[in-house]
């Protein structure tokens, strides 16, 4: 029989918000890493750095499965996957990493896209902070009843 209330006060709501903050931080970290390695032609394991993406999926907060009919969902990073797009080739025969045809393979990173990802992640992070503060504010209002 699934529980029908997400009680324990605002615990569930705050865990949900916390999961969102973690997920957005992961996105920011990955975007930073992509930006920092935009010119890395020789990554560990050979070849140019491969761009990475964070894959998100909604997830139940542990211990609250089935509450409110499954309407309360947190988020988790289900995986970090490599972008399979081919590397960007630049003609530069004098470069140490140039291949037989004189092309150097650069990472498939578009700095503008990475900046946009960082900005949206940052905005979503701020929204999560606001939401968590609201929960705290509501709990304080309850505490003030009768004062």
């Amino acid at each position, binding site marked *: 029989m699934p529980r029908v209330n997400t009680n*324990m*006060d*605002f615990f569930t709501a705050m865990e949900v918000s916390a999961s969102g903050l973690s997920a957005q931080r992961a996105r920011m970290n990955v975007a930073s890493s992509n930006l920092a390695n935009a010119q890395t032609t020789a990554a560990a394991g050979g070849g140019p750095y491969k761009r990475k993406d964070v894959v998100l999926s909604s997830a139940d907060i542990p211990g609250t499965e089935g509450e409110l009919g499954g309407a309360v969902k947190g988020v988790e990073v289900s995986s970090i996957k490599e972008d399979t797009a081919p590397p960007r080739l630049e003609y530069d025969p004098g470069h140490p990493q140039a291949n037989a045809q004189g092309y150097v393979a650069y990472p498939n990173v578009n700095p503008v896209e990475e900046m946009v990802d960082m900005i949206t992640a940052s905005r979503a992070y701020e929204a999560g902070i606001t939401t968590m503060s609201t929960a705290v504010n509501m709990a304080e209002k309850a*505490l003030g*009843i*009768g004062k």
Partner: protein
Amino acid sequence: MSIGKIHGVESLPGLSQVEKPQTNLGESFSKALTDAHALDNDATQQAERFANHDPSVGIHEVVIASEKASIAVRYAVTLKNKALEAYHELMNTQV
């Protein structure tokens, strides 16, 4: 000249709508004590469950239960004081 019969007060219109007051101080006090006891027990239990992280008790539930108990106890005490006052007045009446 005929003099009409004098009717009793009972025939005055509207008198039947006036009810005798139902309050009996003793009964009210007894009920107030029962209520206060019940609400106080409930508040104490909720507080204990809250302290044990029982998911069914949130902040507003436990605070409201505590306030209700406090008001009910106050009410019972007030009735007790009134009853005591009435008793003393009675005892001081010169016969």
